[in-house]
């Protein structure tokens, strides 16, 4: 939902970042307002996953210039845990398995860290179980998964549902979902997308990072951005995703070549 007067939640300006010695992001600009759903599309290696990790504060990535503000606050100064607590959520492309850490306990500690930041009371074990059982419905997840170790032995679809469950518990204001559709069959995709749609509202925003159009059949974006060579090359409405699906990414190369020629 586009409302020009809605508050800006995330403001990315001329963001440059590298991993080890390799520059990946080369000037990303993006403004996200409350209520909006954005999709960033692009080929493998275009920098879209790096963008998600930089926003979440992954230690392997170094920001070399540019800025990111979240509700006016300099996001890049904050530790990953602090970003999560104030409402920035990253749904992982490959959720990490953590043997020996109970999923239920993990979800409770995470939820309480967010609640504490919001000035809410921490939930004890019983109150949390009530909450989590209610939120399980968002992704139609079997409660048995709460008793297991975090993501251990989960199928690809179960891991992604667990990500959306975390999102449902943490109630972020900006949710960045990195290739949430990868590795999902049609049924799982429908459930996961249904969860994301349920959680989207006028006060929060969603940034979908995806390779394929099919996720966007299930979640309708307000804006589609095409990323290439570390920046956003073109921005449009949902029809841009359809155009990409039809024409492929070859035209992106042509535009890049044209840009390079201009610079030269």
């Amino acid at each position, binding site marked *: 939902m586009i409302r020009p007067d809605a508050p800006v939640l995330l403001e990315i300006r001329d963001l440059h970042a590298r991993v080890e010695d390799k520059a990946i992001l080369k000037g990303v600009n993006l403004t996200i307002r409350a209520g909006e759903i954005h999709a960033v599309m692009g080929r493998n290696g275009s920098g879209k996953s790096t963008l998600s990790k930089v926003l979440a504060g992954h230690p392997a990535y170094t920001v070399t210039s540019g800025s990111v503000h979240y509700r006016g606050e300099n996001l890049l100064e904050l530790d990953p845990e602090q970003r999560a607590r104030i409402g920035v959520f990253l749904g992982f492309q490959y959720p*990490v398995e953590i043997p020996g850490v109970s999923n239920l306990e993990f979800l409770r500690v995470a939820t309480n860290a967010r609640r504490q930041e919001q000035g809410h009371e921490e939930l004890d074990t019983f109150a949390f179980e009530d909450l989590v059982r209610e939120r399980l419905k968002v992704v139609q997840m079997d409660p048995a998964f709460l008793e297991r170790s975090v993501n251990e032995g989960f199928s690809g679809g179960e891991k992604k549902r667990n990500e959306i469950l975390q999102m449902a518990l943490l109630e972020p204001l900006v949710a960045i979902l990195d290739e949430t559709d990868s590795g999902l069959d049609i049924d799982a995709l429908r459930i996961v997308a249904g969860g994301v749609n349920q959680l989207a509202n006028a006060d929060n925003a969603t940034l979908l990072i995806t390779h394929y159009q099919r996720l966007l059949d299930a979640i309708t974006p307000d804006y589609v951005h095409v990323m290439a060579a570390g920046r956003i090359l073109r921005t449009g409405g949902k029809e841009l995703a359809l155009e990409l699906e039809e024409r492929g990414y070859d035209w992106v190369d042509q535009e890049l070549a044209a840009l390079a020629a201009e610079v030269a």
Partner: protein
Amino acid sequence: MPASLAAPAAAKGAWLDAWLATAPAASGELALVQQRGREALRQRPMPSGRDEDWRFTDLSLLQTLPLTAASAAAAALPEVSSGALRVNWNGSADPLADQALPAGLQRLSADEIAQGLGHTLAAASCEQHWPVELNHAAAERVLALRVSSRSQVSLELVSAAAEGLQALRLLLLLEEKAELDLSQLIEAQGAGLHSLVIEAHLARGAQLRHGLVALGQADAALLAHLAIEQEPESQVQLTSVSSGWGLARLEPRAVQVDGAAHTTLRGLQMVDGQRIADTHSFVEFKGPEGQLDQLHKAVAAGQGRSVFNGAVRVPRAAQRTNAAQLSRNLLLSDRARIDTKPELEIVADDVKCAHGATVSSLQTDELFYLQSRGIGADQAAGLLQRAFCEEVLRELPAAARSWCSLERLLEAAA
């Protein structure tokens, strides 16, 4: 020249000479054993880095420890669970003096002790190991118990000691299909040396579930030999957890006398500061179709040092043995050190023997995943460390489990 003169006097240790000179005269039921042990200590040098089995483990801490007899201290423990017998055991007084023994548990007679004592140590090829001789020299009594056929017994042995020397010796006979749940605590509450020798003989079909929790401090050392003889169809699960000792050396040694038994070994040792923890395990299959399932874990922080050596012997008679050994180590500091080594001797040709070792620090991806959900870096590291340890802790018998929360282990380690 007699061997005793060939060895450099310093190698035996002036501290040990001084103790041998002033120790009370050998007396009581173990007088002969004590005399032999003291003679052995006089004859033989203390192990040093030149001995392969002690290559990584510096014993110099021992020379600084007080060796007067330790007095018992109180351990802060939860109430004993119903049906279990808890015994405070310091090695000198008779721990069963005022105790009514539960059905199925009896003391061994003097004749039975004379017959059984040392048998399992010899079977496990360790009766002349230096720490065993030290125990021989020092231990005044043996706690000798039988679990009668088809009985089920839960026993808790608590040995908390103030400053000094505590020497504990235990002899267990489990008759056919007897079952014993043994939770054991050794806790140092002062500087000192804690010596433990256990012999357990399991008849056919017997089951021993033994959890040893050993909580030390920087100026205390633990030297423990846990020798087990298993007849076919018997099952042993030995889980040991140690933390805090300036020096801890554990030697679990299991021999399947005719194969066809099941041995499960679990170990967790935690070192921080400049502490050393060393586990040398030994499992021998003397007949076919035996099984071993072993997991040893270590957490090394500060400048701590962890050593694991896992010997497994599978001679020709031990066809169709199935043995798996895994050593997993968590390195929390770049100044800590971990040495881990499997030592497999396999002669039989139709066997499955797997072994593996990993040494890693906390995984960046796991930490980041937890942090990205709002969990602080320290808390995330704590959760991951807890998960690492929990895999061993959860295998302890219930009573032993209740004695060693991870917090308590970490507190002891630091």
